[in-house]
């Protein structure tokens, strides 16, 4: 058997793939958090709940309406995005004039409510969601077997991150978003309906979380805690990458997923804490995060 640093190669590659998959979810979730934070100046603690909601909407569409995975990948983000519009307009928008802490408390409360309702309705054991027919099976790459669905998740997440980055950095809509992040009143004085843009930004972040949720549904069981399990690590990713940095959240998301996976090979006991160790080191060396601009 091929060995790398004295470890069996298939084990290495397997953990690398797992790391990339976790990293894909970290990247998608922290990307949405970064966009929302940049524009609304709130840390969206409901993000994990929106991720979970995406998976549940996909599950519900399949079991109640017979809507397949591919349609769910498109429709669940729209449904959850619409839910985001309601949340922002009804609740979050009332807090912009107050201290950030209120936004944090509100979204944290929303997460508890959404997850609690899901637990009441569906229990916490979780429901299976089948891998779509087209993505079942595995391919032999020579050095390892790659389950097709897992490869798809990494690619789909990377493409979505890239697309989001392109929209923000290279389009006029993105320029308006970046400008509003810097100085929203002036952008509004230039004729832009900033309150509406803020609502749509929150909806966009929610839709990204839901997209990740649908991708996750066939890998993890669809259960009310699936978001809460991720979100703590995702917050660490956001802090390490630099609050509000788009590129930072994507690179850091994938990077930390891989670091976590590799730690499972070399020092399994440390895999649950390695991200937080990295966080402490980064915060000591660069308080604004790897990609953050110091305020």
């Amino acid at each position, binding site marked *: 058997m091929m060995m790398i640093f004295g470890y069996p190669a298939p084990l290495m590659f397997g953990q690398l793939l797992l790391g990339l998959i976790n990293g894909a979810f970290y990247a998608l979730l922290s990307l949405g958090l970064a966009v929302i934070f940049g524009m609304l100046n709130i840390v969206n603690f409901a993000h994990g709940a929106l991720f979970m909601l995406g998976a549940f909407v996909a599950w519900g569409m399949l079991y109640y309406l017979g809507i397949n995975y591919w349609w769910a990948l498109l429709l669940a983000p729209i449904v959850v995005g619409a839910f985001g519009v309601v949340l922002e307009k009804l609740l979050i928008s009332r807090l912009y004039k107050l201290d950030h802490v209120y936004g944090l408390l509100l979204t944290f409360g929303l997460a508890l409510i959404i997850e609690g309702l899901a637990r009441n309705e569906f229990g916490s054991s979780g429901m299976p969601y089948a891998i779509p027919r087209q993505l079942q099976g595995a391919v032999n790459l020579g050095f390892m077997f790659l389950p097709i669905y897992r490869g798809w998740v990494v690619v789909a997440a990377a493409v979505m991150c890239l697309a989001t980055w392109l929209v923000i950095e290279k389009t*006029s809509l993105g*320029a308006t978003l970046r*400008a509003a992040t*810097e100085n929203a*009143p002036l*952008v*509004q*004085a*230039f004729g832009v309906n900033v309150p509406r843009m803020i609502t749509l930004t929150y909806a966009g972040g929610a839709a990204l979380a839901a997209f990740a949720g649908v991708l996750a549904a066939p890998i993890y069981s669809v259960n009310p805690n699936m978001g809460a399990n991720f979100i703590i690590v995702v917050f660490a990713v956001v802090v390490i990458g630099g609050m509000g940095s788009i590129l930072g959240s994507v690179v850091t998301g994938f990077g930390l997923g891989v670091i976590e996976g590799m730690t499972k090979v070399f020092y399994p006991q440390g895999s649950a804490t390695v991200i937080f160790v990295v966080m402490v080191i980064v915060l000591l060396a660069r308080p604004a995060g790897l990609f953050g601009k110091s305020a």
Partner: protein
Amino acid sequence: MLEVRGLNAWYGESHILHGVDFDVREGEVVTLLGRNGAGKTTTMKSLMGLVPRREGHIRFQGQETIGLRPDLIARAGIAICPEERGIFASLNVTENLMLPRQVAPGGLDLATIYTLFPNLKERASSQGTKLSGGEQQMLAIARILRTGARLLLLDEPTEGLAPVIVQQIGRTIREIKARGFTVLLVEQNFHFAATVADRHYVMEHGRVVDMIPNAELASSMDKLHEYLGV
């Protein structure tokens, strides 16, 4: 074109404007002169809807705008070049230039803007805040000329700039006046103001206390020195 009556404005608890009255007619260049802290910037921001609490009347082309949101005031045809310039660091020069929404036909096209401000063309892909102070000021003026807004609010566009740049800004203001734009200009430097303006309003402690036509500026120097404390 613009009619301001009894304008009051507050920042939180502090009452800054105490009944400001003035008019601007179509095609005029009118200045607001006054000492530091007289309320000139606050007046400009109030016209644009950027001061949270304001009362009184602001009628623009017959429409009451006192209670409108800034984006709707912009769409009515008013555009601002703020005192701090407001160039966006995360946008390059072209993105800064294209940011303000077009609100009406009749704005300058890019070719004309680049003729007026050749530097901006050369530096099109530079980060906005990497420009020199003078270039940033050009950019801040240029971007509102595109929008088709007919009333331009320029808040101290010459502040802290070298004399050749001040002259270029003076030429620009005369050029846009010739093209039929209306300009409300805040200035500390009344020598500069005299070269571009039709009339001058003097502000003191949140009120307009005097109006001097440009033709009478020379004969009003003593009065003006007293108002401005220079």
